[in-house]
């Protein structure tokens, strides 16, 4: 009885199994499955097949459900004219670097704040978390001004991947997520390692990190998708055609390129994140709720 109520939701199980409830349940399920497929997968189908249509076919009324004479040429044109290989490589490169920088610096910081707890650690954590309150658009101008002329060093980071990597390290949400995970690792383990004479770095490497694989995975996946989806910041700090990310590159070409070729390029640009999602969907979904529920 008690176990039954654990899975009980709005409508009771037994009601769904009986005659009328059962009929309603299956009808509703069918409607939702079909409806959701149309609403969420339909546009993607339209996108992939639309890019296969000729310029004439896409303008005809009513639109055709299947491309009559598939024009793979649109995808080939997108790949060649927009230099998608270069754009995709750039984006991969920025994403990989972002993962590396975030994992190294944010993990080290979270470890220090959680386990080493140096003087003023809480103040620093507070200042980091305070940045979550500042909307990104408010900082875009002063951040840009900072990047084109770094204080003290007077280096211009435009077109340098560091202008994407370093600001991403300043991610309070990651540090919060990692710190909370490290907090749940028993203090005894740390103590035991210290007794054995392990340095803090060694403890982090051989005890904390192996236990934290799930959360590190979540941080890495979110970091890749963040770089892949970002638009305005890379548009500002990567102005030259050689350093653009794929989204910015497509946008830059959209004006003078046939519509179907732009869509074909958009499809290609979306493939990597969709693949990442299909592979890691469990991690992504658990990370999403882990960060927001108890936060």
């Amino acid at each position: 009885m008690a176990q039954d109520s654990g899975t009980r939701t709005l409508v009771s199980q037994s009601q769904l199994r009986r005659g009328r409830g059962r009929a309603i349940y299956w009808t509703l399920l069918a409607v939702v499955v079909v409806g959701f497929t149309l609403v969420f997968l339909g546009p993607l189908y339209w996108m992939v097949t639309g890019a296969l249509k000729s310029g004439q076919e896409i303008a005809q009324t009513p639109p055709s459900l299947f491309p009559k004479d598939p024009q793979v040429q649109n995808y080939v044109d997108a790949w060649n004219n927009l230099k998608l290989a270069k754009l995709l490589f750039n984006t991969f490169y920025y994403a990989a670097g972002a993962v590396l920088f975030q994992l190294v610096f944010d993990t080290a910081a979270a470890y220090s704040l959680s386990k080493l707890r140096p003087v003023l650690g809480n103040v620093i954590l507070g200042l980091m978390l305070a940045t979550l309150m500042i909307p990104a658009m408010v900082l875009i101008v002063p951040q840009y001004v900072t990047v084109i002329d770094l204080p003290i060093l007077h280096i211009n980071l435009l077109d340098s991947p560091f202008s994407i990597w370093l600001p991403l390290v300043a991610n309070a949400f990651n540090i919060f997520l990692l710190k909370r995970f490290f907090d749940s690792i028993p203090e005894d383990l740390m103590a035991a390692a210290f007794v054995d004479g392990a340095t803090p770095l060694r403890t982090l490497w051989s005890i904390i990190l192996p236990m934290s694989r799930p959360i590190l995975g979540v941080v890495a996946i979110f970091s890749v998708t963040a770089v892949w989806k970002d638009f305005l910041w890379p548009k500002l700090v990567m102005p030259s055609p050689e350093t653009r990310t794929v989204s910015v590159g497509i946008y830059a070409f959209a004006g003078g390129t046939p519509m179907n070729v732009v869509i074909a390029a958009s499809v290609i640009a979306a493939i990597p994140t969709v693949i990442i999602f299909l592979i890691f969907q469990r991690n992504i979904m658990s990370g999403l709720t882990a960060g927001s529920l108890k936060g």
Partner: protein
Amino acid sequence: MAVITAPAPAGHKAPASPAGGRRSRKLRDNLTGHTFLIGAVLCFALFMWYPMIRGLVMSFQRTRRGETTWVGWDNYIRIIDDPSFWIAWKNTFYFTALALVLGFAVPFFVAILLNEFRHAKGYLRILVYLPVMLPPASALFLFKFYAYDPSEAGLFNAILTALNLPTSEWMQSPTMTMPAMVLASTWMNMGSAVLIYLAALQNIPGELYEAAELDGAGIWKRIWNVTIPQTRLILALLAMLQIVATMQLFIEPLILANGAGTQDSATSVAYLIYQHGFFQNDLNGAAALGMIMLVVLAAFSAVYVRLSTKED
């Protein structure tokens, strides 16, 4: 050994001990701790804390021909005098309000529905979250060229024609611009809200529904009296986060409406910041507008905190 096992909590002053060894050990521990922090702290300092102050300072300065002078409130006055300032705020509030109706209520009811199903759960979740993973630029080009094509060859107009409904000009009609942007934005973003609500719904104890049903409460009554009160905190939090996110509306007008849209129907505050900063060579004005946006959003957050603490 006892000294090592319990690292002192931060801010806790070391007891003045005659043993110098203990003090130097403490110093060394702190040093190690700060060494681990330094990378992240430097990045925060350079790209978050310093720009925050810099933005505030810039908003009271003016740089002309390489010379920077203090100009008091001039930037703010110039920004507010610009007629597009008020249009941008009107549009942004309109978008936020529409997005709240559509993007807030719809995911909640979708989550309630999905939570009842015992079949196809994984499939439905993947479907809802799939658009979130698309690069926004890709998804918006899809809407711009295929869905919102104002001719009858467009996807939405073809559907409307098939249903014998009047077609729309979409982004070319000033009245449809905002609803069309909200629709695209909701489609792209609602997945994460649905998944967060689903997790929250799973934490509601089944006994509560049981008891409500025994008291004769129907489905709607149960949603109103059990589901909503039980998820009140997460609902309020997501509403707040969504308001802050939608007020920064930028990429939708940029791609769908080429920025300003038909008769300025799409200009948003964030787009105006971008315009001033990077096209009109007015970084100081853009910084001032950013500060105004910060104050408005902070006011929203303050109201939210006030309301949510009052109820507890």
